[in-house]
């Protein structure tokens, strides 16, 4: 029996906010046979800025601003998890009004992030006009964010024990207007992604992650919910004010009735989550209780209290990409934490790439990798560029292959 001729080739794939000119290095090493992938090896290209090491030398308020810049898209969830970890470690209470406001900002960021992802996924398939459509919708969400917090991307709205800015009565009509705009355009968006023949052809039965694999590899977020595993920190464990609302896990069988674990299912999961977020924001703004914004407004007093308290705590929350967990340990003598560990959601979603990509065609690599919505800067790595591989297909060629396949299918 003749041995199959396989060639070991390396493809340097850019993952991240993707556009023809953006490069965020991640190295995949594929063993291919013709057009099919036999085996995958992931070598992480990184953006290591030594954030955890730096954090162990600063006081908790400074760490909030450091944590915000771990990633530009998840700039609410990292401070949120850190603040929760500190509150759990030192037993600091959070007023109810602050909890509801945290829900509003968290869900607003989720909508913005899913819109960004939707544009990126459409671009990988080859529909640039859909990229512009979704990003235009995202601009409206960013306008609202700017009115509520002062900035589009890095918000600086959290503090230990509460939140910094309030939503007053005169801001509520603007929130209602943005939600109405999103609801009106939601149907159009769903129609473009779910009913279009080419989207379906490219994404169905492609990049499948089975239920068992998702469970064993500890995948998180929409990647794992699309395979049928019910994991969502907001519904599993009460935090902020999520336990006051009636929520459920968004799995694809809510829309289609069946679960396949392919790219199409991930699109469905994210669209369902956008709808859920819009409803959550409206409910939270309606039911906003009266009260304080912070439990301890004087920061020196707060820092002094943290300095004297020894303890450890974890803070988990649900980012648009999955579960984020921070661990903090105070030793009771310094206000800098003795240990700070950050684990972003993409960390756990890297191993699932391997079973997803085996057996797929090369032209499908961009859409499968983008469907897990990876965020490489969250994962804190160092760039490794390996020079002595045989030949490199860069992102331009990969993107071209992906677009060519779409044009072929459209005929």
């Amino acid at each position, binding site marked *: 029996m003749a041995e199959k001729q396989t060639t070991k080739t390396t493809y340097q794939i850019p993952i*991240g*906010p993707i*556009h*023809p*000119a*953006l*490069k*965020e290095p991640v190295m995949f090493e594929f063993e291919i046979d013709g057009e099919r992938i036999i085996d995958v090896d992931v070598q992480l290209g990184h*953006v*290591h*800025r*030594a*954030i955890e*090491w*730096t954090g162990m*030398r600063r006081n908790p308020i*400074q760490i909030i*601003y*450091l944590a915000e*810049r*771990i*990633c*530009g*898209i998840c*700039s609410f969830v990292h401070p949120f998890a850190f603040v929760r970890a500190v509150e759990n470690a030192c037993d600091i209470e959070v007023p109810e009004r602050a909890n509801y406001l945290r829900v509003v900002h968290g869900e607003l960021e989720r909508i913005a992030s899913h819109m*960004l992802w939707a544009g990126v996924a459409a671009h990988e398939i080859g529909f640039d006009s859909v990229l*512009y459509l979704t*990003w*235009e919708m995202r*601009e409206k969400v960013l306008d609202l964010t700017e009115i509520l917090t002062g900035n*589009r*991307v*890095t918000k600086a709205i959290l503090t230990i024990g509460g939140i910094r800015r309030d939503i007053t009565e005169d801001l509520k009509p603007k929130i209602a207007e943005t939600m109405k705009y999103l609801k009106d355009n939601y149907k159009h968006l769903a129609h473009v992604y779910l009913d279009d023949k080419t989207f379906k052809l490219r994404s169905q039965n492609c990049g499948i992650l089975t239920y068992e694999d998702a469970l064993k590899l500890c995948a998180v977020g929409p990647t794992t919910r699309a395979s049928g595993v019910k994991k969502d920190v907001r519904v599993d464990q009460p935090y902020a004010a999520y336990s006051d609302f009636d929520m459920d896990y968004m799995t694809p069988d809510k829309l289609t009735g069946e679960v396949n674990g392919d790219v199409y299912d991930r699109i469905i999961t994210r669209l369902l989550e956008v709808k859920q977020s819009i409803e959550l924001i409206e409910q939270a703004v309606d039911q906003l209780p009266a009260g304080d914004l912070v439990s301890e407004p004087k920061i020196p007093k707060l820092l002094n209290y943290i300095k004297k308290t020894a303890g450890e705590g974890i803070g988990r929350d649900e980012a648009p990409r999955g579960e984020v967990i921070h661990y903090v340990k105070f030793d009771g003598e310094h206000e800098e934490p003795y240990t700070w560990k950050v684990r972003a959601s993409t960390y756990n979603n890297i191993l699932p790439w391997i079973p997803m990509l085996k057996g797929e065609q090369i032209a499908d690599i961009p859409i499968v990798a983008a469907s897990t919505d990876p*965020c490489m*800067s969250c994962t804190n790595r*160092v*760039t*490794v*560029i390996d020079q002595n591989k045989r030949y490199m297909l860069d*992102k*331009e060629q990969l993107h071209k292959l992906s677009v060519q396949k779409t044009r072929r299918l459209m005929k």
Partner: protein
Amino acid sequence: MAKGLPKSFKKALWVYNCNSGSCNGCDIEIIAALCPRYDVERFGIKLVGSPRHADVLLITGPVTRQQADRVKRVYEQMPDPKAVIAIGNCGNTGDVFYESYNLVGPINEILPVDVHVIGCPPRPEAIINGVAKAWTKLETLEAKK
């Protein structure tokens, strides 16, 4: 923007984006500049996929140890005349990452920077303003030849 400029620049500006370890905030605002709201393509500014076709280099991020070499190589691959724009606070001063074991200095210690755009992240309007200033600088350089 075009007032009083020498008409020596024949084509519109092509821009290449290089991420040297940033948090992606600035990169998202660069792509937002292309979208219909800010629509930088109406000026003819286009994002290209290779430094060999580009006139302007946009760099974001505090330069990590590994990216230092890559950033230099990208700069050398670009044809003259060229301009370098450092976008975001990280590339200009280091911002919150001022002390770390894996970062090598603000961008102007590695490459000659022409325009500094500050902000964390800078708004798309500020980025377009920065690119326009680089355009003016390039036009002046072209005219001097």
